Structures are given as structure tokens and as C-alpha cells.
């Protein structure tokens, strides 16, 4: 990118400026906030998956010393709106999801009563004194059974468990399937996952009665979207609401929602005249923060004997749980849009049915719909390679668009911005020492060991996005201000919460202004400083938000040239600018710097006529297209025959997210994403029993990867700039997870292939692998005597 300086921050692997405060424990999270007169909320949640509420007795709780109030749905719901969903889908059936349950609860964890008290302990004790009389109703937790005629209904008044149907059809699917030499078929279950951010949700609401205004501190990814949505729920105008997002200990999509607790605490702060805090417990988090994935797909891929892929068909069911959070119905449609992966498929038919069950709602979780697509198509490519006896890398290469074919229109209607899938694959093979790895597998197999190599070549959709495809606009806002002292304040409408943009945005602005990073502060996560923003999700912040900053910097430089010209006695056109200094062409010795300009701009005594004081500019950037990062992950694993344990022998990730502002941040994002995948592929699954009871309510039952499970990564990259924004950056927040799921799974299935095992659904828990191995090897032992007889 063009840079106004020789600082050369862009591309440097600089340590994050955020880290010292986080490492030292001096950062401020929501739970660290202390306000005078603060009250604490605790929530009584339904232990039933489906039940009628016959009565609630709150007297004893109300009489507990220290309790400020006990509220049921009858008390609160009439004064508040419904939980908003931004997805517009024709024919979508949506239950009216109120703050607290009305006369019916429909998932375990459904909020029923809220207690506000002087301390969290009193509030919790008061919950034990509340008696709720439930009359249990039949529940349904299996989405396929939910579609059967005699199934219990999640919402009986809707008359069906179908929330919506969605069809994406393009091209001559039937004709191409008729031309196919083979049809590769596989049913794949994408298990339900619990995001389990290390910091659960939490909020503090404070109402200022004099001004009639409300401040809400909340652990969220989307303060700006909340400011847009909250007025409709609590009846306070948008311009009287300030949302502040302090430090956030992990979001991964699970904090991309307006939750009842945020609205309810706001309402209660107004009602009680005292600030109200609510901090989610781990068990609460497991049952009442959105879940991820949960799709079942029957996939068919039409292929020619030479490995050419022709078309893909999918019939999928998305189990969306019992109600709609912000983007619940949209997420599985992203699976449909990305189902072609990196391949030149000519036609697609993706039939999706969204189904209500008596479980927590699903929504965006790391990758949000794309990991399901990549996992499905990459498993199918491996199955096709195996059936046709082709090399998994070669069948992929054969079906990639060539670099010259970009922008590439997919069968699903997307326009992939730029790509060189061949180069990423080649680089990953080099880093993995592919041929040596194949020999290693051969030797291991000869020794009777279960050694497998897995490959995934992925593409994903990032940099969301053009406003016409987004519910509330896909632009981003940014402001850059040269202070009077010459320091620089950057305000971004994105809301970094772990991605590191306090560092990378300072690098971008520092370079372009020619100002040292130490002089730059990046403000984020406060709607009083960043008036507008569309926040952080879908790996969009740098591609869209970074561009808004560049636009603002350029406006400041243009104005500074006018001011410098006036001070130096020349027109702006004759002013040169570099390294943070301005001079009249040919007279670099007589230059003035930002410090002088800052002083002049605000003291405003020597301004030319018609030039406003100050040096500040803000911009909205509207992207014309999304970005499509891609890459190749190669994994080698060994499966222990006796225990079913999976050991990662080698992990190579090559990701192309365009030019990297800070390679250290990129690597961190990739590593974190792969760790999420190790969890999904090897351990994690959210389990409800047939009565709708959540059986994975804490870490003892919901295993997640630990440090010892994380292998050494070999991380590489290629650089293919995106034409969607001036820096050419693409985004990398979800790439790791999207690329890693199929690579790890393919490696494990490759290890088991010699035993005749074709496919196992995730998670590939040791017990599941051990049983599959036992079944095949026991069968072999039994067959032997028969063949001898």
C-alpha cells in the first residue's frame, strides 16, 4: 500500500499493544466495574425443556433481607419488547421470545424469574426460595424426529416444527448428475457446539434519570448494533443510549446477539433507579448463550472418472433450537452459499429446512455456516479421490479455477474476488514435505500403525460486506484526529475483542500519517466515541474498518497540505508530504511537522480563509464485494489402535488473507482457529438427552482442547491481494477453523482407511474410533477361520 512514511509498520510482526494490560491483569472487564449503589441480578432458569408454568411463588424470596426486587414474566414482559432477529426470510415462523418466560418454558435454561439484590450471593440465595409450579409438556430434541407427523411441537401454536425452508438452486443439476460417471454420497452430521468463551457474558446497566439516558456496559461484539436494537426493546431512544464494551474475553460469534439479560438489566436499572449488574455463570453460559453448528446434511457430488466434479446436491436440516437470536436462520444459508468450496462446480441444489427443537438457539459460532460447507465439500473430495483411486491433492488441483479466471463466479452466485489456490496448495505441500510424508505413512502402515494424511483446500467469505446483502448495512466508520499536541487519536466503529486492531490499526495509520505508533491511541467499543459502526464479526474489521481509517487519513493529509501551504506561503498543490513532514516542492529543509500543524489547526490564528479549524476526519467505507481468503491445511495423524487416541504428528497451515498488516496477529488468529477445530474434530459436542436435558453443562462433560493437545504448527502464507479494498486485505479471524476441521478429519479417516472405515461423524472421540477399529478388526479375525474352512 502507499504509505506516507518510511516507518514501515505495515507487514511488521509487532507485539500487540493490548497484551501488557491483559497479561498483568490490569485490564477492565465488565465484572471489574464498581458503581455506587450497584445491585446484582440473578436469574432462575427452567429445569424443564418444555413445560407450562402453572404458578410462581416469590414471597419468600422478596422477604429475604437484601433483596431489592423479584420479577416474573408478568412483571417485566409487558414493559419490554421481544428479542430481535435480523434475518428476513420468506415464510419464517418466529416465536415471540419475551424477556422472561410467559406461561410456557421451551428450553432448559429459559429465564423464568429475575432477582435483584444487594450482593450476588443474596440474589442467588433468593433463587432457592422461589417456587415454580411446572406442568411438563412433551419435548423434542432430535431435528429429524421433529419433522415427523406425530412429533411433539416446540411451539404448539405454530402447528409445525419447521421454522423455514430455503432453496438455493442454480444450473442444470439433474442433467449434470445424469452425465456423471459416479455419484459420491455421504450423510454428515455437524454436531452442536458450545462456544465456551473464557469470559462468560455479563453486563452493567446504569440509568441517568435526570437526562433520561442509559449507559450499558456489556461483554459483546456489537455495541453499535445493540444501540440500534435496544430502543425497540426497552423504549429508550437511540441517542440516549450509550453502549460500552470493555475488554471482552472471547466472543467467537456467541456475543453477536442482543440477549434478554442485556435488555432486562437496562429495564431494571430504570425501574429500580439503581445500576444493575449481571454476570453469567459457566453453567448458565452452557445452557443460555447461543450454540453453534447443528446441521445434518445428505450430500451428493457428481464426478467424472477423471476426477472432474460437475455438480453438488444437498438436503440439509438445521436444528436451530427453540427461538431466534440475531442471525439464527441466516447462518445455515452461508453453508449453502459456500458449498462449492474451491471448485468449478457447474450446478448446485441446496435444500435447507430450519427446525425448531426444545434446545438453546443456535447462531454464529467461529466460521458461522462456512465450516459446515468446507467440511462437507472437503470430505466429499476425499471420498471421490478414494473411490476413483486419485491423489487427493491432484483431484483438488484439477477442479480449481485458474488464477486468471478471477473474479470467479460460483454456481451459488458468489463472486470470488481473487485467488491462486494452486500456489497455496503447492506451498503447503512443500512445507509439509509431502513426498517424505507419504513415505512416512507407507512405512507406518507396513509396521501395522494407523497413520493418516489429511488435506483441505478451503475458501471462505470475509470482509462483510456490501450493505445490500446485510440487514443493517455492511459499511464501516472510522475517524482519525490529529490532536493539538501532535498526538493521534483513531476511533474505529469496529469492535475488536481479541483480534488486535489497537495494534494493527495504529500500524496502518502510523504509516500513512508518518507518526510513531507510540503517539497513536486507538479507541473502540464505545458508542459515545465511535458514533457509528457495524462492529466485529465475519472477519471484517481490517478489510472494511481499516479502509475507513485510510480514507480519513487521506482527508486529513489533504487539509494539512492546505494549512501547510498557507504557513509556508505556497498553494496546497505545491506541498510535498512524506514521513510526517510537509514542505514546498524543492525545499525539504524548510519543512513543518504534525506537531506544528496540530498547534496551528486548533489555535487557529493563521488559518487561510475558508479553512475550518481542527484536523479531524471521519469516513464511511462501503465495500463493493466481500473478500474470499483461502488456503491449504495439511495434517498428519497417528491413531492409537488400542485406545483410539489421535496424535497430531504434523500440522501445516498456509493461509492467504492478502497482504498482512501484522503477521504475528495473523499467526495468532490462525493458531486460535486451529485450536477451535481440534476441539470440534476431536472432543466437543453439546448433548441434550431425549427429554431435552442438557448433559454437557460444564467442562467435565464438555471437553475442550488444552495446551497439551495443541501441536507445533508450521504456518506459512501466500499473498493474493483482494480488489475489494485499497489495502487488498481479506481477513483471517475464522480461516483457521474453516481450513482445519476437514484437514484433521480427513487425516483421521485416512489413517482408518486401510481398515475399510469410510466415514465417521465428528467428534472423533477415542471411544468412537476404538469401537470402529474393534468392529473392523474383530470382523477380520472372525472372517479368517471362515476363509480357511
Amino acid at each position, binding site marked *: 500500500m502507499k504509505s506516507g512514511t518510511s516507518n514501515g509498520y505495515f507487514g511488521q510482526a509487532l507485539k500487540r499493544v493490548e497484551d501488557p494490560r491483559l497479561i498483568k491483569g490490569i485490564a477492565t472487564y465488565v465484572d471489574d466495574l464498581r458503581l455506587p449503589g450497584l445491585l446484582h441480578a440473578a436469574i432462575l432458569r427452567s*429445569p424443564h425443556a418444555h413445560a407450562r408454568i402453572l404458578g410462581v411463588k416469590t414471597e419468600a424470596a422478596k422477604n429475604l433481607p437484601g433483596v431489592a426486587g423479584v420479577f416474573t414474566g408478568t412483571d417485566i414482559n409487558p414493559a419490554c419488547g421481544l428479542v430481535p432477529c435480523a434475518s428476513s426470510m420468506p415464510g419464517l415462523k418466529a416465536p415471540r421470545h419475551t424477556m422472561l418466560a410467559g406461561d410456557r418454558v421451551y428450553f432448559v435454561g429459559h429465564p423464568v424469574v429475575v432477582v435483584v439484590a444487594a450482593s450476588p450471593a443474596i440474589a442467588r440465595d433468593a433463587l432457592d426460595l422461589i417456587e415454580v409450579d*411446572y406442568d411438563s409438556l412433551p419435548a423434542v430434541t432430535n431435528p429429524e424426529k421433529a419433522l415427523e407427523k406425530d412429533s411433539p411441537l416446540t411451539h404448539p401454536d405454530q402447528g409445525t416444527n419447521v421454522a423455514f425452508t430455503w432453496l438455493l438452486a442454480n444450473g442444470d443439476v439433474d442433467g449434470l448428475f445424469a452425465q456423471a460417471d459416479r455419484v459420491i454420497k455421504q450423510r454428515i452430521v455437524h454436531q452442536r457446539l458450545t462456544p465456551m468463551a473464557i469470559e462468560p457474558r455479563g453486563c452493567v446497566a446504569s440509568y441517568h434519570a435526570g437526562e433520561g439516558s442509559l449507559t450499558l456496559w456489556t461483554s459483546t461484539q456489537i455495541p453499535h448494533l445493540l444501540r440500534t436494537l435496544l430502543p425497540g426493546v426497552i423504549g429508550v431512544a437511540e441517542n440516549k443510549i450509550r453502549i460500552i464494551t470493555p475488554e471482552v474475553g472471547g466472543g467467537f460469534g456467541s456475543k453477536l446477539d442482543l440477549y434478554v439479560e442485556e435488555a432486562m438489566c437496562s429495564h431494571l436499572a430504570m425501574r429500580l433507579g439503581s445500576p444493575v449488574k449481571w454476570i453469567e455463570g459457566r453453567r448458565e453460559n452452557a445452557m443460555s448463550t447461543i450454540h453453534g453448528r447443528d446441521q445434518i446434511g445428505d450430500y451428493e457430488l457428481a464426478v467424472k472418472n477423471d476426477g472432474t466434479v460437475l455438480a453438488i446436491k444437498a438436503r440439509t436440516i438445521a436444528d436451530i433450537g427453540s427461538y431466534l437470536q440475531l442471525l439464527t436462520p441466516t447462518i445455515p444459508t452461508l453453508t449453502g452459499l459456500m458449498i462449492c468450496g474451491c471448485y468449478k462446480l457447474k450446478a448446485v441444489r441446496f435444500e435447507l429446512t430450519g427446525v425448531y427443537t426444545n434446545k438453546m438457539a443456535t447462531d454464529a459460532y467461529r466460521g458461522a455456516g462456512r465450516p459446515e460447507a468446507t467440511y462437507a465439500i472437503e470430505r466429499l473430495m476425499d471420498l471421490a479421490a478414494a473411490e476413483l483411486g486419485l491423489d487427493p491433492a491432484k483431484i483438488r488441483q484439477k477442479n480449481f479455477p485458474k488464477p486468471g479466471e478471477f473474479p470467479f463466479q460460483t454456481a451459488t452466485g458468489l463472486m470470488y474476488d481473487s485467488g491462486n489456490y494452486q500456489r497455496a496448495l503447492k506451498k503447503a505441500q512443500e512445507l509439509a514435505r509431502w513426498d517424505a510424508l507419504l513415505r512416512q505413512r507407507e512405512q507406518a502402515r507396513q509396521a501395522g500403525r494407523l497413520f493418516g494424511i489429511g488435506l483441505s483446500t478451503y475458501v471462505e467469505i470475509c470482509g462483510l460486506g456490501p450493505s445490500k446483502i446485510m440487514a443493517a448495512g455492511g459499511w464501516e466508520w472510522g475517524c482519525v484526529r490529529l490532536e493539538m499536541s501532535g498526538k493521534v487519536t483513531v476511533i474505529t466503529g469496529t469492535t475488536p475483542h481479541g483480534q488486535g486492531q489497537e495494534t494493527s490499526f495504529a500500524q496502518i495509520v502510523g504509516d500513512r500519517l508518518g507518526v510513531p505508533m507510540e503517539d497513536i491511541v486507538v479507541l473502540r467499543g464505545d458508542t459515545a466515541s465511535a458514533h457509528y459502526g457495524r462492529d466485529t464479526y465475519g472477519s471484517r474489521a481490517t478489510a472494511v474498518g481499516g479502509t475507513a481509517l485510510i480514507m480519513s487519513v487521506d482527508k486529513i493529509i489533504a487539509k494539512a497540505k492546505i494549512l501547510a501551504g498557507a504557513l509556508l506561503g505556497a498553494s496546497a498543490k505545491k506541498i510535498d508530504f512524506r514521513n510526517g513532514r510537509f514542505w514546498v516542492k524543492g525545499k525539504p529543509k524548510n519543512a513543518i511537522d504534525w506537531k506544528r500543524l496540530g498547534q496551528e489547526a486548533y489555535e487557529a490564528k493563521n488559518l487561510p480563509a475558508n479553512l475550518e479549524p481542527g484536523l479531524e476526519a471521519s469516513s464511511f467505507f462501503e465495500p463493493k464485494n466481500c473478500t474470499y481468503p483461502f488456503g491449504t491445511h495439511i495434517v498428519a495423524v497417528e491413531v492409537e489402535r488400542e485406545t483410539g487416541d489421535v496424535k497430531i504428528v504434523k500440522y501445516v497451515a498456509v493461509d492467504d488473507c492478502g497482504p498482512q498488516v501484522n503477521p504475528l496477529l495473523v499467526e495468532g488468529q490462525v493458531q486460535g482457529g486451529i485450536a477451535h477445530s481440534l476441539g470440534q474434530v476431536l472432543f466437543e459436542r453439546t448433548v441434550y438427552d431425549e*427429554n431435552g436435558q442438557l448433559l*454437557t453443562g460444564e467442562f467435565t462433560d464438555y471437553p475442550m482442547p488444552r495446551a497439551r493437545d495443541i501441536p507445533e504448527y508450521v504456518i506459512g502464507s501466500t499473498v493474493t491481494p483482494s480488489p475489494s479494498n485499497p489495502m487488498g486485505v481479506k481477513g483471517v479471524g475464522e480461516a483457521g477453523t474453516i481450513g482445519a476441521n476437514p484437514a484433521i478429519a480427513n487425516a483421521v479417516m485416512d489413517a482408518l482407511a486401510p481398515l475399510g472405515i469410510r466415514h465417521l461423524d465428528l467428534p472423533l472421540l477415542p471411544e468412537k474410533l476404538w469401537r470402529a477399529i474393534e468392529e473392523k478388526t474383530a470382523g477380520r479375525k472372525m472372517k479368517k477361520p471362515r476363509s480357511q474352512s
Partner: protein
Amino acid sequence: MIIQGTHTIAAAPAHVFDRLMEPAFLQQAIPGCEKLEKTGEDEYIAHLKLGIGSIKGSYAGKVRLTDRQPPHKFTMHLQGSGGPGFVKGTSAIELKAEGEATELHYSANVQVGGLIAAVGSRVIEAVAKKLAGEFFLKFSAIVEHDVKPER
């Protein structure tokens, strides 16, 4: 979840059956039972304090008896709830004479919900068996010595 078991009690079925119908006896034998009162014909209310795995809590419940055929069998319906969740179940109890003694067989179909299910599901079966074992041990001792507890 099905929980079943068989216990031998050194007393005649008629005697065992009678004692099983007396709240005061039962309260002594039921682990963590703080209160057990007859509220009507074959109906009782109970208050229990129990630990299931790491989850300790108080439960209030109703017990109803049906299919009462002394001294052979009866069916017990239990519905209880507390801070950590709820328990719902039905248990068939059969008594058979084995010489001087009684062989008692129970088979219960139990459903648990809430926190007990979420974090106690791994241990609940073992805990239920252990509690049943504790109950019959105490109950046997009481019946065998037939020391009527003080009311």
C-alpha cells in the same frame, strides 16, 4: 433412567409392608429426609437435603402410592424439585416371602432435570443406587429390630 435392585430383609412381608407405609419409619431410613408427612390417603409430602456429585441442595416433593396390594406390591410415584433441578419417577415395589425373610425388588424409572442432569448425569445412576442401598440398610435394621422410632 431405570434403577433396580433387590434386597433381603429379615422379617415377614406383611410386617415389612406395614412399616413401608409408616412415614416415621421411612423418614429415619431415607437419606437426607428432613420431613415426611402423610397428607391424605396414600399421599405424602417430603423434604430432602441431598448431595448428588458436587451438587448439594434441598428438594421438596410429593409421593403418591397406587396399586397397593398388601403385602405383595405397590407403586410409588415421586415428584420433587429444588434449587438444583427436579426428579420425577415411578417405582414398582414387590415383596416376596423367602422363608422367614422378605425379598424386596424395586424397579424405578427416573427422570432428572436441570442442574442435576447437566452436571450430575455421569454420577446420578451410581448415586441413586448408593442412596437406595443406604435406605434399605437402615430400613432393614429398623424393621429387624422393630424399634419403633420416637415420633
